[in-house]
């Protein structure tokens, strides 16, 4: 499922709200932008039953160029993480 398919399904499910297609688009974009903004501020996003997004630091290290073997400096950086919520985890193994 892609983002545009998700928007389409959302529009069908909420057809009774009589929104324009671009409004459903804005809803979906707003949700993911909100999550991205929170993570960019170092905040956590917890959606019970679905999962939680967080940001974890990864220390600076010396990496290797796999082709030449040369040492490369890899700066400290932050990576987003997702932990599946209990309900969704159980659903994945039930259906």
């Amino acid at each position, binding site marked *: 499922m892609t983002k545009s398919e998700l928007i389409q399904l959302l529009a069908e499910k909420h057809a009774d709200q009589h929104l324009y297609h671009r409004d459903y688009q804005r809803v979906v974009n707003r*949700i993911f932008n909100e999550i991205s903004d929170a993570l960019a501020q170092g905040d956590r996003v917890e959606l019970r039953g679905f999962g939680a997004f967080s940001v974890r630091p990864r220390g600076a290290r010396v990496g290797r160029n796999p082709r030449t073997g040369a*040492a490369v400096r890899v700066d400290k950086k932050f990576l987003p993480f997702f932990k599946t919520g209990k309900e969704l985890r159980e659903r994945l193994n039930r259906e």
Partner: protein
Amino acid sequence: MAGRTVTRADLAEAVFREIGLSRKESADLVESVLGLIADALARGEPVKISSFGSFSARMKGQRIGRNPKTGEEVPILPRRVLVFRASHVLKDRINGSLAPLEEGEGLEIVLDSERPDGPASS
């Protein structure tokens, strides 16, 4: 750094401000978005949200685990686990705003090519 936790209510509030619907309808839309994603994943269908990331279910084979309390060996049955891969847009966004704040905090690393006495032999 972090402190705040964003929840469904915050997402609903953001949707409420974006679209002129009631708070209840906004909350329903958030719930539907999460529900539709979960439905697709439960069907085994990967979900790709451009400029955010992708979710996919991966199969894990059976392995032997151990009850940490008793030390007893227990088989862990094959199961499906969810994998989230953040898009480069999201990773760049996170590092664009967080990494500069922490500059100078990382380890000082001296590359082989920068050593005055040439590459270290190890």
